[in-house]
């Protein structure tokens, strides 16, 4: 991972914007931002960002590579698409946030203890195992992601939610023994491995 980071630093020596355009999902849109601030002002997470979207886009153009990719900012995005609906320049902001988050993580720069960094990976691992999300296992892995003691505490705090869901038939305790899965689960794994391989070779091959 950090090898890839070094390679990228080398390749795009003085232009983080170029690197973003080439390697970040929908990153080629960043240069279209006119810094009006509508996105940041429309965002439900406005009080929680280290750097709101508008600022991140400015920082990309100002070559603040480390600061952007290791920021917790993009991980605050709830995917509400309010910014997209309102941006006068039509930037796919939500997707750029997701793209920056994923790229930072791929390079090993994303903050390791950030809860959404961890949760999004748990979610992906959960769904790719069988092709479908197993809500019970996902919930449990979430509670225990900060260690066993923390896990028990969270599980107890969430007890009423869990019991309520079970009582109303919306949580199946037996999912722990397998649960829903796709017949083509191994196919799905193969397909995803191929997609990942292509995505990584696209990154490596780009001559910036």
């Amino acid at each position, binding site marked *: 991972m950090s090898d890839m980071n070094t390679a990228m630093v080398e390749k795009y020596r003085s232009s983080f914007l170029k690197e973003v355009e080439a390697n970040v999902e929908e990153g080629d849109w960043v240069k279209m931002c006119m810094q009006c601030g509508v996105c940041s002002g429309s965002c439900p997470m406005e009080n929680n960002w280290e750097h709101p979207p508008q600022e991140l886009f400015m920082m990309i153009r100002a070559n603040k590579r480390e600061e952007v990719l290791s920021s917790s900012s993009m991980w605050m995005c709830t995917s509400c698409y309010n910014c997209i609906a309102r941006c006068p320049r039509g930037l796919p902001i939500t997707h750029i946030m997701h793209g920056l988050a994923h790229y930072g993580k791929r390079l090993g720069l994303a903050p390791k203890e950030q809860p959404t960094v961890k949760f999004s990976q748990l979610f992906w691992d959960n769904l*790719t195992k069988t092709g479908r*999300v197993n809500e019970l296992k996902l919930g449990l892995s979430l509670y225990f992601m900060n260690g066993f003691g923390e896990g028990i505490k969270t599980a107890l705090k969430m007890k009423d939610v869990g019991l309520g869901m079970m009582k109303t*038939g919306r949580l199946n305790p037996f999912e722990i023994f397998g649960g829903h899965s796709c017949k083509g689960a191994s196919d799905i794994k193969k397909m995803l491995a191929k997609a990942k391989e292509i995505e990584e070779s696209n990154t490596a091959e780009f001559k910036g």
Partner: protein
Amino acid sequence: MAKYEYSFYPGCSSQSKASSVNYQKSTQTICEELDIQLNDIPDWNCCGASIGYGGGGELPRISLSARNIAQSQQAHGQQDIVATCAACWLATREAKERIEDSEKVRTGVNAALGEIGIEIATEMPKTRHMVEVLIEDVGYNEIAEKVKRPLEGLKIAGYVGCQTNRPFGIDGESYENPKYLDKMIETVGADAVVNYDKKVSCCGGALMFSEPQKSQALVKDIIESAYDGGADMIVTPCPVCQMNVEVYQGQINKDHGTNFNIPVVYYSTLMSVAFGRNAKDAALDGQMIRAKQLEDIANK
């Protein structure tokens, strides 16, 4: 033959005993009433939802949706794909757009599908949200005709939320103040809260799990605004909204000193009751906060 027929993408949260199985159940009920046939996509898989991006990059995520599209075509030809979940709808619709617009994505996705011996044949079918089908194909008039027990006297806040409303939204509706859910509420005989100012606010989505305090603060405002408008209950078209706004009320009460206890139901639950079906068919047993007024009507 049914009057309307679609290829159906249920999504992970609609599986048996999953968190929105009540949505699935009540949707089946209204489909029976409205003569809509939903043909499941065989062996469908998860769409990656809006939180999959951390672990899966662009191509892996789009491949997931592409597999569903290919499976749908293989089994049901060019039938429109219908999803009840906002995230499923969005991901699948977006995948189609990206595959069509980007050569790089298209080539990548075709190679990934090729790896497992399937392909997207010809043009991809449209993916539509269940509410689009209800509004555009069935229509308010036909829904109104089915109403046997108007939900008179009930005041309901129509919480549209994010992803059913943006980025695609429902054709002809504004992003800031969409009216279709209010119209649905009125079509089944209830009163919609006008000027429900948190109508399209975000509930925090998946961040409810990773950043519960921040998300719960958002949900608190959504509930408060419904109470301010005099609502007896909240209705929503999205399984994430339903879950986030319903099940954390106890925790919000503890942390914020509030006293919330407002039921959050699906539009399909409202319709099932109004169409004269019983509490079970309307999936009222799936409410964590019981919708007593609806139960009373359903049991009459």
